[in-house]
């Protein structure tokens, strides 16, 4: 099933030091797959950054999209962190390398 890159587009934004990650499935079928595969835990594991709170997932079936918030991921944000990309704009593309595994029999 490849990686997220084969099924979705991504865009990040920032509010303070929260990273907001939008995942835009390229079809309704892809949305169903991503909705199941991308739990808040899966995102937190892939974005193994020091967070100040839990990853929150919001599903938008009407738009075939998911929005995740990662509080504290930006470590102070654009004005608080000395990091080059304080907004975390480049961080969206990190999601694209996440492999999508075919659901195993034991899951069903």
């Amino acid at each position: 099933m490849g990686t997220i890159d084969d099924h979705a587009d991504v865009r990040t934004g920032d509010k303070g030091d929260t990273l907001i990650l939008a995942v835009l499935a390229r079809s309704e079928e892809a949305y169903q797959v991503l909705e199941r595969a991308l739990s808040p835990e899966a995102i937190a594991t892939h974005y193994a950054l020091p967070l100040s709170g839990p990853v929150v997932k919001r599903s938008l079936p009407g738009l075939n999209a998911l929005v995740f918030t990662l509080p504290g991921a930006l470590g102070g944000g654009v004005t608080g962190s000395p990091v080059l990309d304080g907004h975390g704009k480049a961080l969206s593309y990190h999601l694209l390398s996440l492999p999508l595994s075919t659901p195993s029999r034991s899951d069903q």
Partner: protein
Amino acid sequence: MSPHPMNRTVRLGAGAGFAGDRIDPAVELARSADLDYLVFEVLGERTIAGANARRLTGSDHGYDPLLRRRLEATLPTCRQHGTTIVTNGGAADPSAAGALAVEIARAGGFTGTRVGVITGDDVLDAVRRVDPELWETGTPLSAETDDLVSANAYIGAAPVTEALAEGADIVIAGRLADPALYLGPLAHEHGWDLDGDPVLLGQGTMVGHLLECAGQLTGGYFADPLTKPVPDLARLGFPFADVESDGAAVFGKPAGSGGRLDRRTVTEQLLYEVNDPYAYITPDVTADFSGAQLEQTGPDRVRVTGGTGRARPDELKVTLGFRGGWLGEGQISYAGPRARERAELAAEIVRTRLADVHGLDPDAVLVELVGAGAAFRGLAGQQDPVEVRLRVAARVDDRIMADAVGWEVESLYTTGPAGGGGARRHVQEVLAIRSCTLPRELVRPHVSIEEA
């Protein structure tokens, strides 16, 4: 009450989506798109604090650094076409920005131009009196040790409608909420009650949200040559929207301009920087974008309906700016065999010397290996890069220590690993941003009209 017959479509153009945005797409819109309104959104959390800091130090005026160029480039065309300009480019000093607009209008021969200036977003006195709890720390403002330099409340669309009702041709505000720059003209033109139907205000806010980042709706921050190709980004067209009296909007861009506008570009921008699409909090409404319906009605035309909303919050968000010390940084490149190993050795040398020679706390020093996974903050596995650019940065209390960071990187030229080249160093003052809320009744926007 509406100044125009009902069912008239109002055309809003997005002339800028951030302080550093291009100017020529706004000129193109003003000339060719027959706009009713041209909106320049140029403030972010850090821009308003930075503008306040510049004003306080007397190093510069407190309004948008490009405001003069934006107005000089578009005001004559807008006046000729009857297009009203709305902007939050007043930043930390809307009154001075208003005087600038009057000067530019007079210089262009447009005497009689009415400039509406909105003040009252500066709530420094109120936050000092109320001593609210800060979101980031959970402690009262008075517990902060950093020097507070600015406090600006996000104000809503009401003062925009007031200025327009008084016949303003240009409306200049400071920390007006981004979507309110667009909701204000819609409420004025369509006679929407800003204390009324939250469904209508939610749809109008959705229209404003889609336009507020300008080129991000038409292919900017979207393009990927393989998965999402966008034609002619060098001449990216900025969007406009034709908005009906029920809030339904058809988005488009100038004929012949670069970029693309379709359901994919619109959906990405709809969810951009929205932490909760079911409850997007603005001063005017708690908007809900989750039921948005997008329909491609033609080439580069998308009709958007289905935005809704609930009651607006009782408290207004306030952005606080504090003097946060200094940021010092230095960069140097290594290429070829063992580039990464040499960059790592260089980083270790700088780290050691900043601690031993300059007395800087090693925990304050940040090392990034650009080209070897820095943008992903070390999350992704790395192969052998062709080249690595070492970046060392630290936030420190004083300018001399900040300067030492770049100095120690630059001095690697003659004292560090082999083949280090292209060193650069930079120092800047840092403004730390925090947030709180204030009761709405403590924020009192004021509108004044100046005439050129």
